């Protein structure tokens, strides 16, 4: 059984078919890239996957369970975590507190137990502290734990968003243009981070990206979108030589190498 199964997914915004009849699957431990020209519906699909939007038609299954009708905050319980195209951190909170928010949905102690500082509070908070430090150490951010998130450099902010998402223990991590605004060396570091996510946390990754170096470098499979529909699916080599994909990107048949690498 696939980890994520998307079946005939559509969403219409007053006649605009932003996503139309999209189906794909993601297996456990896979790194899948979603590419396509601007406005192809990539971020819309992410918003559908995390139940920010409700689909007009179609259904999404995570490990065979339908996500239909679940509120957005419950998606973490189902095993989905995401990052955002424009970084969304809790900027006035410390780096480690940002990560700890990721543990929130696992929190068991009640408000009363917190206010009266009863043993469950101490036990859980100690556990969170250790686990958050562990995650920050794995991603090489241990020494920044007590800084306010807004003081971090750009690349580190992107990384912290991934840390926060990982803290919620997802089975599938959705990354929305993680390399956006990064230079070549930062992108290289990001690729290592994404591999780390897969190897250390056994998390599948679905990422939207325009940076072809990154996409071709780490994705095992690609999904190409155009005008809200799936144009092609397959391994990177196959997709790169697909004449339809080239037409969508360049407007006419051209040199396949124009796609990068």
């Amino acid at each position, binding site marked *: 059984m696939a980890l994520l199964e998307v079946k005939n997914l559509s969403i219409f915004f007053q006649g605009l078919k932003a996503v139309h009849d999209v189906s794909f699957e993601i297996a456990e431990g896979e790194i899948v890239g979603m590419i396509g020209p601007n406005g192809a519906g990539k971020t819309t699909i992410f918003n559908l996957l*995390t139940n*920010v939007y409700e689909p007009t038609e179609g259904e999404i299954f995570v490990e065979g369970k339908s996500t239909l009708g679940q*509120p*957005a*905050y*419950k*998606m*973490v*319980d189902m095993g989905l*975590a*995401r990052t*955002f195209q424009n970084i*969304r*951190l*809790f*900027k*006035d*909170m410390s780096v480690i*507190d940002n990560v*700890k*928010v*990721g*543990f*929130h*949905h696992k*929190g068991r*102690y009640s*408000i009363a137990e*917190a*206010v*009266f*500082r009863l*043993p469950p*509070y*101490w*036990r*859980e*908070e100690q556990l*969170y502290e250790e686990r958050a430090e562990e995650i920050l150490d794995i991603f090489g951010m241990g020494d920044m734990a007590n800084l306010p998130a807004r003081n971090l450099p750009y690349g580190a902010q992107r990384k912290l968003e991934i840390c*926060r*998402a990982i803290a*919620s223990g997802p089975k599938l991590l959705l990354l929305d243009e993680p390399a956006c605004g990064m230079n070549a060396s930062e992108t290289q570091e990001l690729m290592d981070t994404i591999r780390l996510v897969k190897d250390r946390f056994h998390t599948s990754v679905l990422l939207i990206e325009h940076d072809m170096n990154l996409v071709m470098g780490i994705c095992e499979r690609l999904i190409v979108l155009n005008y809200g529909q799936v144009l092609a699916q397959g391994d990177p080599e196959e997709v790169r030589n697909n004449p339809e994909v080239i037409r969508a990107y360049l407007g006419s048949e051209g040199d396949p190498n124009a796609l990068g690498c």
Partner: protein
Amino acid sequence: MDKAIRKNILKKYSLNIVLLLLGFILIQSLIVTGVLNSYAKQMIILVFINMILTLSLNMATGFLGELCLGHAGFMAIGAYTAAIFTKNMPMLPPGLAFFIGILLGMIMSGVFGFLIGVPAFRLEGDYLAIITLAFGQIISIFIRSLPFTGGALGLSGIKRMTNFPWVYGAFVFTLVFIICLMFSGHGRAILSVREDSIAASSSGVNVVKYKVITFVFSAMLAGLAGALYAHFQGNLVPTKFDYNYSIDIMVMVVFGGMGSMTGSILAAIILTLVPALLQGLAQYRMLLYALMLILMMIFRPDGVFGRKELTYDWIRQTYRKIRGRWKEDA
């Protein structure tokens, strides 16, 4: 494990407990020995009531990031509920009646907070400001026209139970409650909602639930302040709890810094004492407030403390800095 926890608690909180006790002993001994006259005593109680109010509004506005313009309304509900209870329960010992009255006042304010919060927070945007503004007006009109609230004449003959130990106890309760709530997983969830509600929700925080809970707590603490106020004044008039009073409280929060408890406490002290000291200029009080706010927004838009707190770490660091500078000079 539990032993380690107990040790941890002692280490963490012993200094705070000692400081709070010392503060109480200091002021109480000044009152008992008669160093402070009755006017000063009254001012101290008023300052503490305003500190509770400011802390409670700071919770909704500073920590949750929602503008509430009808806080005096919640205070009024707490005040009238407690006063009506104690007036109708003369057979209970006064201390016990007062305590139950406070609890009832808090619960009643909380219920109203819930009734307002649930519909308001289902919408996204600044609807709460408009709804609470209307709520504040409606409450004062209701109080004026209901049969059991004394109407426009007000409610008089309330037993004056509020003395320094009561307000100090209530203040410590409020402070400890807010600190313990905010420095926990639930507090982090509340802050995350303020910082970015979309990211909070995709991190698994139930945004609507936390907004409603925080708002209900904020209303309950305002009700606590109201109950204390009713038994401090001895009489209640509906005009006291109008729009201006809500704005007064908001001014204190903004002045101290939205999201800073230290700032709220400091602002409540300054903005209660300054107008009282300028008694002769009472008619210029609102002018002063306005001027103060304008100057504040120009020179320190985040309030005196911004979102910072006065903590032991901060004191330690500042002490080291000053000592370092002395050594350099020497």
